[in-house]
């Protein structure tokens, strides 16, 4: 009678164990990532880098924080243009400053 309940219980228990293993893997990976993060930080400091290299498609998605709105006729993030990455990566917040709350 209780066979299905037990099977389902075991199934959920299995998923929970995998979930815990996932959390443990994440914690161990973060702890083991120290050398990678240090190496990245070292290069950022040494070469005075400003951005992560996530996309090499357009200048404003390669250097997200150096993107700008003000240069005339320049493509910018979320502009109607043909670079997929540019259509998905939004402009940096310092370009979207408002002068004050109006409402």
């Amino acid at each position, binding site marked *: 009678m209780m066979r299905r309940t037990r099977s389902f219980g075991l199934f959920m228990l299995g*998923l929970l164990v995998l979930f815990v293993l996932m959390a443990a893997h994440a914690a161990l990976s973060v702890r083991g990532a120290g050398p990678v993060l240090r190496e990245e930080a070292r290069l*950022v400091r040494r070469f*005075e880098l*400003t951005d992560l290299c996530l996309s090499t498609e357009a200048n404003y998605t390669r250097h997200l924080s150096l993107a700008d709105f003000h*240069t005339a006729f320049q493509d910018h993030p979320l502009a109607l243009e043909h670079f997929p990455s540019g259509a998905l990566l939004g402009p940096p917040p310092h370009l979207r400053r408002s002068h004050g709350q109006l409402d």
Partner: protein
Amino acid sequence: MASWIDRQKNVLDFTLSSLLRRKGKNLALLAVYTLLVFLMASVMLATSAIRKEASTVLREAPEMVVQRTVAGRQDPIPLAYLEKIRDIAGVVSSDGRLWGYYYDPVVGANYTLLVPREDGPDPGTVTIGPGVARARMASTGDTLEFKGASGALIELVVGDILSTDSELVASDLVLLSAADYGAIFGPADGLATDLVVRVANPRELQTIALKIAERFPDTRIILRDEMLRTYDAVFSWRGGILAILLFGVVLAFVIVSWDKASGLSQEERREIGILKAVGWETSDVILMKFWEGAVVSLSAYFIGVLLAYIHVFFFSARLFAPVLKGWAVLYPQFRLIPFIDASQLTALFFLTVVPYAVATIIPSWRASVTDPDAVMKGIR
């Protein structure tokens, strides 16, 4: 207490039998539900990991970058600006950065060429990022050709390749000497691409930035805080990539839940009618439907999140790669560090499991409070 547990077990057992009777339909529902959770969790895990890594690594970025704009375009900045900037109280040092983009017609890739201020490669040699090495299939000792400003081909020997650990920050970098930089982009005597400024007290950054902007109205200033906030904003819930990707997935989830909430199939209604006729209470029916929702949604949540974790951190979010890759040839092959944001997983739980469970209970409650005879006959 024991009887309460027995009751739950009995109802759960009946629920599982009921679900298995409609195996095909319920498995399809579980698959779609799991896919939606998988997509949402993948986006959340990937963006959260990028944000966390950016905030850790870019803490070492320059405190302030000063760029010059001429005729509506970024232009090389005169090194003569440095002296006046160094005169500003609170500025510790200021230097020019030489860097630019180079389109490599051989493979159709874009590189970032940069001249390190200290310990750079010797003239005639370059140090390349792992992505450049991959795109050009280059190893140490190979020669890379660059088209110079004069039209002549400039051959530079690969002296070193940056470690693959640096992929996320240096994949497309080509480090070279100032002389080779000048040969490729043309001589830039007295000019730099932009300036970096270091200050004694970070709290004075805004004031110093204002003073620079006053002294040099043709400049724009980007602070390190703004660089950090860029990644925080672009990869946050409200950011472009998340908002766009999540919108479609959430909409699909709403359709699935709405379909569930809007009514029961004739077969399900008949089942409820029979259960009521044989003596089940309304609360028993609702409990059964609660378990039905819980079985499907909890299974989908756990399987979806686990698959998303494997997708993002073991397969480098391969499904999303084409989005960032776009038309680019050189694509950084980084492995994200699994910084899991527990609050996001909790939010995902409440976003997916709870609405579905509620959506399952409501129509069942409506059916179970109706006369069993009417329900079985299909009359509302």
